[in-house]
């Protein structure tokens, strides 16, 4: 697969995910909707990191650095949830 074809495919996938987000917002999903939207957003961020930011070609250290932000976001969300869900 050529590099430009790969970029186009990833772009198409991102557009597809965008369409999914918009589509989901019209469905009667109730409280599940944010969960689905965040999952789709995470998938999009993952694609951007892996292909556009070229983490796929990097070694373990750069991947770890790329992941660190998400690990810390998990810290934030977990302990936020500890408050929100038990208030």
């Amino acid at each position, binding site marked *: 697969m050529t590099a430009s074809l790969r970029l186009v495919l990833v772009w198409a996938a991102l557009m597809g995910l965008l369409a999914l987000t918009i589509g989901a917002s019209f469905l009667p999903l109730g409280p599940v909707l944010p969960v689905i939207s965040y999952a789709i957003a995470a998938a999009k961020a993952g694609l951007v990191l892996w292909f556009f930011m070229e983490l796929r070609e990097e070694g373990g*250290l750069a991947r770890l*650095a790329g992941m*660190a*932000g998400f690990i*810390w976001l998990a*810290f*934030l969300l977990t*302990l*936020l949830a*500890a*408050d*929100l869900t*038990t*208030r």
Partner: protein
Amino acid sequence: MSRRTSQDAIPDTREERASYLNAGQGLGSWLLTHDHKRIALLYLISITFFFAVAGCAAALIRADLLTPEADLLSNEGYNRAFSLHGIIMVWFFLIPSIPNVFGNFLIPLMIGARDVAFPRLNLASWYIFMAGGLLTLAIVVMGGVDTGWTFYTPYSSTYSNAYVIGALAAVFISGFSSILTGLNFIVTVHKCRAPGMTWGRLPLFVWSHYATSVIFVLATPVLSITLLLVALERIFGVGIFDPALGGDPLLFQHLFWFYSHPAVYIMVLPAMGVVTELITAAAHKRVFGYWFIAGSSIAIAVIGFLVWGHHMFVAGQSPYASAVFSFLSIVVAVPSAIKVYNWTATLHKGEILLDGPFLFALAFIGLFVVGGLTGLMLAMLAIDVHVHDTYFVVAHFHYIMVGGTVSAFFGALHYWWPKITGRLHSDLWSRVSAILIFGGFNMTFFPQFLLGYEGMPRRYHVYDPSFQVLNVMSSVGASILGLGYLLPLTYLLWSLRYGKPAGPNPWGATGLEWSVASPPPKHNFETIPLVATGPYRYPLEADAPDEGEGEKEAERV
């Protein structure tokens, strides 16, 4: 030879004639420099200025608190004075103080590199910092802010009539400076180490700055976004924090402290790195428990992110979450305690030289222990309910930030001054100022523990007359403290002109920074050193007489 200017002084070595200080003349050579050492000096001058501005605000506060009535400042004026003091001290002095001055100057020297990984980014970070700082000053001139340094909603987002947006913007801008510096240090430590400088041979100063940089990079963006959200709510009425608009009133505190508790470690981890260097140099002994000190820096950087809820015990946070945060806050004390025990063990049976830098390091340890132990008290749910938002909290964090960080900053300034300027300063006067600062500090802030325990709330300038004696003590102590801070300015500047040439290693210390001339040449090392041993290989002379270099050795008793 004449000694008209500091740079004109008698060159005692060949290297001194061509140092980074005279490698280019004129303002342009400083303002456009890529040299990490010159950028460090730009930071030193600018943060000293901000320290003075915020110190003046503190003087106003302490003068107003001399009497129980509001006789110096109006209510508005008092709110603006403590907000200004907090905002400038935290973001324009404490956070950049040790990392941006001494980290910048020393990390490349300590790891055997010619500069940081991204020299231009380093300079950009200083300009961004100055933009934020000058915007803050502009806001002060226009009338200031009254939200406190914490910008709590809904006051900041809805009610305050002051220049909140401008202050938010200033802090937002300065955040990018922190992020870029952190990024620069991380890449520098990973990529620019001299051959043989393995992770296990890094000076512990570098480890603590590495841990600090991780916090810079991971915490600061959260603050930036949070401040942006406050601005969004204030300007456009987007409901994020205001429950009337569908927001969560506690969300601001969660997000703010997710940055601001780790920010305490941004202030104190570099100070711990400084103290480790000062203690080993003064004791002339190998450090006790290298990996424990290095590992505890990393542990603090990680666990420090998990404790922020201890600021919200009485804010309406769920009691279950509070219990978790209370437990984690006690856990984060463990790595700090490890460091204190290791410093003490390093001093055990050392050949201790009671010089100025060592006294500052001792002051750090003592004051940090008091600040840390009262922090444990505040982490207890029941005690916190009693003393929350009182002067007990104010005293606690000043013991950490002023007693700890500022003492270490002055210790670092005295210890590396001969390296930075090539001049020796007066050891007698440095000891005097260390003692003045220690005494003045305790007299200022110890009474505040008592005030808080008896129930005097923070951020009020009208108080019950029964609190006056302790408040007067505190204000008198603050004057002594102020003198203690002014004193080094005089003899350090004096030494620039009249101080004896320092020679490469005036303290007889280990470390690559002491192997080059003082002040160092423009590119630090003529040939990149090959590192074959670990750090802190004391005693220098007894082990290898041919490596001996410290004239000071003869004076040791």
